[in-house]
Each structure stands twice: as C-alpha cells, then as structure tokens.
C-alpha cells in the first residue's frame, strides 16, 4: 500500500510520518515514532495495554487508525505514557505504582498510567467504586489490582500535598 505523509502531535511535539493510510495508531507510535511505551497485549481491544489519551480522553490506540488523528488546530493532542513524567521527575502516580507494588511485570502499567491519569484529571477525588470501575477496561495478570488501589490512593494524597505546597508557594510570592 502506498504511504502517505501525516502529522501527529504527541506529547506536545509535532511529528511527520509517512505511513500506510490503514496503519494503526499503536503501531505508528511504536514503530515510526519509537514510542514503545504503549503496549500490545491482545488482538481484539480487550486488554487496555495500548491506552493513550487523545485530548484527555483515554482511548485504545490498537483500534485507532493513525491517519484519523492528525493534529488539527489544537484538536487531537495525543499523550502517551512517555509524556506523563512531569518536570523531570516521575508523576505522583508513577512513583506510587513503584512504591506500592502497583506494577509487577509492568507490561500493563503504561495502560493503567493513562487510564488512572485520565480518571484523576476528570475526578481528583474518586471513590473506591469509581476507581474500581474506571480500571475495568485494563487487564493485569500479576497484581490482582489490590496494590494498584493502594498506589492510586497514595498518589491522590501526594498530589493533594503537592498542591497544598504549590499553593503556599504562590501565596508567598
């Protein structure tokens, strides 16, 4: 199939890639942009390992055609797991997943990072039920999810503390 030039905006940067028009976004990210953080865990959009955010909404990049997500006047801002670490340090959720055993083999972790990030952006104080439900589209075979809940709660606390500190600073200034 003949390739076409498309432009994607990923993690705040623009990339031009020549790809087959039918190429999936997951494969484009992994093969053409070298962003191998997003994983493929299944054939039928059942595992969530490939989750990314498009304009903040978590989506399965294994079922999306890359050419349909060309950057376009501020729309189609794609965020992958590589774009989660903030200001040169792990984001609270990334640190907490390590500290609390939220990832073991880690293959599912990028997908969970994107799902949890989207959840917390939408709802900074989710209930236990909210968390459980929002994770249900991502599968993990290692953890049984229990330690993920602990990690998510720890991350929320850390965020709140961090925010409190941030506020103090602003007040001082």
């Amino acid at each position: 199939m003949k390739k076409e030039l498309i432009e994607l905006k990923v993690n705040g940067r623009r990339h031009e890639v020549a790809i087959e028009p039918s190429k999936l976004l997951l494969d484009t990210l992994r093969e053409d942009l070298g962003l191998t953080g997003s994983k493929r865990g299944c054939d039928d959009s059942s595992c969530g390992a490939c989750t990314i955010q498009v304009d903040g909404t978590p989506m399965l990049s294994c079922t999306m055609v890359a050419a349909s997500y060309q950057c376009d006047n501020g729309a189609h801002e794609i965020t992958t797991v590589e774009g989660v670490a903030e200001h040169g340090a792990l984001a609270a959720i990334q640190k907490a997943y390590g500290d609390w055993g939220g990832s073991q083999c880690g293959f599912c972790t990028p997908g969970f990072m994107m799902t949890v990030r989207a959840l917390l952006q939408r709802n900074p104080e989710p209930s236990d039920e909210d968390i459980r439900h929002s994770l249900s589209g991502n599968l993990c075979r290692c953890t049984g999810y229990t330690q993920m809940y602990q990690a998510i709660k720890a991350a929320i606390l850390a965020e709140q503390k961090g925010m409190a500190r941030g506020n103090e600073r602003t007040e001082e200034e």
Partner: protein
Amino acid sequence: MSEPKKSEFSVIGKPVALVDSAGKSTGQGKYADDLSAPGMLIGKILHSHLPHALIKKIDASRALALEGVVTVVIGKDAPNTYGILPVGHDETALAVGKVRYVGDNVACVVAESESIAEAALELIDVEYEPLPAWFDPEDSMKSQSNFIHEQRPNNIEKDYHHVFGDPDAGFAVADVVLEGRYIANEVTHAAMEPHCTLAAFEFDSQTGREGRLTVQSSTQVPYYLQHKLSIVLDMPMSQIRVIKPLVGGGFGGKSEIIPLEIIAAVAARKAKAPVKITYTREEVFLAHRGRPRTIIDLKTGVKKDGSITAVAAKVIQDGGAYCSYGVVTILYSGALLGALYDIPNIKYDGFRVLTNKPACGAMRGHGTVNVRFAFESQLDELAGKINMDPVSIRRKNLLKPPCITVNGLRVQSYGLPECIDVVARESKWAERRTKLGKGRGLGMACSHYVSGAASSIIRSDMPHSTVNIKIDRDGGVIVYTGASDIGQGSDTMVAQIAAEVLGCKMNRIKVVAADTDLTPVDIGSYSSRVTFMNGNATMRAAEDIKKRIVAAAAKKLACAPEDVLMRDNIVYKRGVEPVESKSILQKVLGTSPSDKAPTVSGHVEGQILRGSVQQKRKDEGPKERMSFEEAVTSAMDNTGALSGTGSYAPPVEAKGGKHKGGGVGPSPAYSYSAQVADVSVDEETGEVTVHKIWAAHDCGRALNPVSVEGQVIGSVWMGLGQALQEEFVWKDGLLMNPTMLEYKSPSSTESPEIECFIVESIDPEGPFGAKEASEGSLAAAIPAVANAIYDAVGVRMRESPFTPERVLAAIRAKNGQKKIEMTNRVDPTAPHKLREHGGSLWFKGRGPQRHADDPSRKTTAEPVAGD
C-alpha cells in the same frame, strides 16, 4: 501494609520499590517487542488447522513470489528434536512430517513487514493426510495405533506408581473413608506480554562467515534457551548469546522453550537478517504450556479424632501433544501430597497422557494445584462426616518439624500452624461461620509449595545459581546474576541482599541480569527457586567480597576483622555508633557528600573523593569508622577492582528419596499458606460472589514486604480465576476462547478484596531465612472457594471452575430438579460462527476436514458436574 518487624537489618525487610519500576511506569523499560535491529525482518508462523495429520507436501512457491517475502522456513530447515526435559525431546522447530494439534507450527514466512508476512501465509499450500485424533485423555490411553508420538505407545507419556507406608493398613484403621472424582479444567498463564523473540547473527571476523547468534527473548529460562538453541542449530553454546529484556509476566508460560524462540533463530539463519517474531494473543493461547485438565480419583481415610490415616490418588493429566514439563508435572502431583500435613501412608498413580491439543506445561503452583483442590475439598467433607470443624481437622494433622515425610521430603521451617491461626482469627471464623445466613458461607483451605527443586531437571552436580559481584574504583557495586526477573522482582531481591551484606545503600548497587555473555549460569525463574537459590548465591558472593573489604578495614580501624561492621555506607568498629553516613563523610571530606553534585573543579565527585581519601589515609592514624568508599579503596590498593563470587547448590539432605521419580518434590524449603474465603451463592442463577479472601503465607522471611504481598495476592487472585471463571473451552481439538475476554481473565470489577498476612518462620537455610512467596498461595484459593460454596448452599463442587452453569446444575441436582441445558441447539460443528470476530487463522472458511475416526464424528459423553 504490614510494618517490618526487625530493625536488625537496614535493607532487608523494608518495603522498597522494584529497582526497575520507574522504567515500567514511564515506558522507558524495554520488553522484547520494543526492540528492533537494523534490517530487521518480521516472521509469521503458519499453524496447522488439523489436530493430527501427516504433512504430505508444503509448497511455498506462491508465497515466495510475493513481493517483500524474503524466505519461508519449514521443518526440514532445522529437524533436530528438543524439549525442556532431557527425557522429552519430542519437538522440532517446525513440524517435520506431522502436525499434532490445531495450532502446531508448520512454516514461517519471513518478510519485510507484518502485513506482507500475513498475506503470504495464505499463499502457502500444505497437503495433509488427516489421522485419527484424541482429545480426551481417558480415550487416548486406550489408543492402539496412530500414536501421537511413535515412541509413546497408548499415548501415555509417562506413568508413575508410588506406595509409601502401608496405605491398605491405613485405610483399614480409618473410621471414615471417602472416595471421589474431581476434575480441574485446563487453564493458562495468559501473561500480559505476548511472547516475542528477536534473533540476529553477526559475522565472524576470522572466518568472514556467519558467526555468533544473539537472541533477545521473553523468557524465564535464558540458559535453557541457549542450550536448546545450540541443539537445534548445531552450534556451540559459546557462539550463542541469550539476553532477557524486561519480561511482561511468565507464570510458567515462558519457563521452557516456546516454538517462536527457536523458529526466529532458524529463520534469521535462513533469511540472513535479524528476524523478530511476536505472537498474537491467539498464538499465545495456542503456545499454551498451561495447567493440564486433571482428573483426580481421590480416597482419604480419617479416624474419628480427625487424624488422616491414608491417602490414595489416581491422577490423569491431559498433557496435550508434546511432553513439555509433563513428566515433572505428574510427579509433583503425587510428591506434594506430602509435606503439608502428616500423612503416614500414601499411594499414588499418575498418568501423563498425550492428546491432540496444545502442550501443557508448568504453570504457577506446578503440578500441585489441582490435586490440592481435590484433597482440601475431600478433607472438608471428611471433617463434616466426623463432625469436626474444618480448621480443627487441619490443626490435627500438622507435621512436627524438623522431620522427613513418608515420601522423603525434608521439612525444616513450618509456619502453617500460625497461618491457620491468623486467617481463622482475622476472618472471625468461629464467630461468623454459623451466623452468615442463607446463601453465604466461609471456606478454609491450605497449600504449600517448593522453594525450588533440590535436583535440577538436567542432572548435574553443578551449582543451580552463581552470582558474581564487582566493585571498582567508583565504589559502585555491580551484581552479575543469571536470575531472570519476570516481574516477580528478582533484580530487586538481589540488590537488597547485596546491599545488606555489604552494608551499603541500595542506590550503590547496579544489577546486571540474565545475559548469558555477562552473567554466570542460573537455571531460571521457575518452581519459585530464585529468592532461595540465587539469593543464597548473592549472599555468598557478597560475603566473599566483604571479607576482603573487612580485612583492609580492620587494619585501618586497628581491630580484629570480626569487629568490623558495615551498614548504610559506613564501615565501623563494633561498639562504635554508626553515625549517619552524611556526617561521617562530611568529617572525612569536609565537604557535602551529595552523590551526584559535580565538584568545583568539574570532576565527578568519586574521583575527587578517592584522591582525598587516599591523602587522608596517609595522614591519619587509626580511626573508629570510615565511609564505604574508603574501605573499598583500601581493599583495592594491591588488587585493583574487587570481585567476589558465590554459588548455591541444594544440600544432599534435601534431595529426597531414591525411588524412581523421587527427584521431583524435594526442595530445600517449603512455603505454607492458609486461606479463608467468604462467598455468596445466588441459588437462582448459580452465580458465586467472593466477598473477601484472607490469605496467610509463610515465606520464611519477607525480604521486601510489598513484593511478598504482591506475589501472594497475585497468586490468590490467579487461583480465584481458576476457581470461578477461567477455563479452556474445547470443541474437537479447537480452542473456542483464545482471547482475554472469552477466556475471562478477571478485571478489576470481578476481583474481590484479598488481604495478605505475612508469616515469617525464618528458614535455617534460606537467605536471611527467606523462602518461596510467589506460587504457594495459588492452590488454596480454589478449594477455599469450593468449601465456602458448600458452606453456603450445601453443594460440593467437584469440577472447576465453579461457573454459574455448574453451580446451578449442582444446586438443581441437590433439589431433585432437572438440569437446564443452556447450550441446547447450539451447533458445535460450526465453530467459524463463534470465532469470526477473533480472526482465527485456521478457520477462515476452511472448516474441519477430519479423519473418519476423529471424535468430532462421534457423540461425546456428558461432562461431570458437581453433585
């Protein structure tokens, strides 16, 4: 999370994040499929659509004519046989002359891209001659001809018949004897990372020809892979390098050589270019090597006081088409009847049977899980018969270690009594059990597992693990370990042990792991051997290198070497306060010791440090304490870089009895687990809801409590999957549910709360007393749920998983109602309709063309359900 109890250690027993966790949460960590090589080609495998057939002809000419196809590999390109067990070399890279299951590997297309390779698969013409196939092990055992492997008459891979003590006499003195048939259906690992292998040859500078091979693969056993590659490719092992990148879960599914690993190497040789093969999820299901469907006829006798007098088990395992780990699996099923309870008399008959389905192999809790389900269920039933509480009957039959069981297993540390106490207390067993109300119940069960096998599968007197440590002028400690981290955290374990022994901080330790060129041999991550064996080797290597540091430090501190202590980057004299490293370093240097800060002169701190330390050393007299770097530098004065080595081989006393097959089961130490399940059963629908599991696990010592909890919870969770919903559904040798959704891997909404309690029995031979933590808890989850279902609604589930269909059938049978036929009128001969969305490779309109004697032409018997 439970607080670490001991403060005698500075690293051990503390919850630490896995050393590679940041790589996992940022996407920086590389798994096999994240790797590529210049000029890399993609391989795609053509799988058989027939369960048993002779290959008459393979014509790849149409595929080769397709633009972008580089080559097509077939069986005769690498016909040497291999297999994980020396007694089971029955596999070839690609089928030679015959296919043995739907999904067997027929050919591999190597092409410029995945889409081209996939298109080319359709263009390979294979002419088959169908043979009769066997899908049920009890039928297969009766076969008289057309055996799956010619060298295995009656399709029996292996049978064992063991008698320990005097079972007949034992049953004769029993007050109650129960017999029952239990069936555990087939489950698989379904690790989130699909298998992937990248193989590349390099040129040899001397000969100018194809030289060394490097294989990067998702494996739990890089050294076995190196060995088997050398057999299949006819290459010396020294010319093969296997590197294990991050592995996205194993659970046993990557603990042997998976076809794509060999095929990728053969393909790279033929294509003369690097080749990567990544399985689709469907291919992962077909590569399988999971837990076999197991039929257990179990008989147990007890006295009125609850003591077990004898056990007899006949176990038939549906092994699939190749041996895989089968001989070991069937032995574990018998051997680990012992070492949990005190059983004076055991009879065991085990049959590993070949069938025309994907090979079963080792899966978490290898060999023990299904028999444990049967045993713990029957023990529960016996307790009912003699009116004894299920907790009490277990307490009644405890071992009294140190001891050797009737089948030759040596038990030293034994935390089972405490595990039982903890879960009984935490679940409020005694108070709640009778007050739960209709449809709700509590169930209890126990399990145990080995901390690695005392004898390795390839017989030899060599150590099972060796670890090297290097410390150079920078004061950095590099640990070279062959242990394969597959997510269980072995790299972290190794770093913790090295840091503890050497008295330095974790961030000084860098672990180089599982690269056959760099790291010494470790036989792999399976049978929960890594912490015990590689941990011990790490400890010994660290002690080896520590000796030299201590000797040098003793001179400086003017004390005996025994009085030199090392902790948290400080080397000090016994009796002296080990002050925070920061203040010490400040004293030594008179500057801030911040590890990373560049110094004014722009030099890296370490170099400055050494210069000033050496200077100081000359000037100063004896002192009371010094920094780790100073001690290391003084030890290096005459030798240059320090290196230490340590290895571990299990002691002979742990190697068990001399009987045939006695090499499987013995372990240097056993872990123990007790669990209570709290469930509800909907009597209208048969649906079982698990509210909570309390799980106590004796891991000897929790080196890293977060990790131990994670492993225990993960095991219990996986056991719950097998208990409630996971199962391979077969129709005439076709796997009907090869996707994560249809296989029903539990999601967060289907996963109950699991509370983990760590019990530390401090094993005398484990590193810091540690033993197994990652598998032993799986087995108890299944019978705990079965027993809770009985407690809730009075039906005894004898076939797992306990799906609504099975539970409802059991409830209706108990009430004298007719069974509801849920699958009535479903046409099982039209599987392509069911599988359309999954993209099955071999059913795209091809349909099954089968031998006249194939069971798909006959009607099948009713499956067993609960009573």
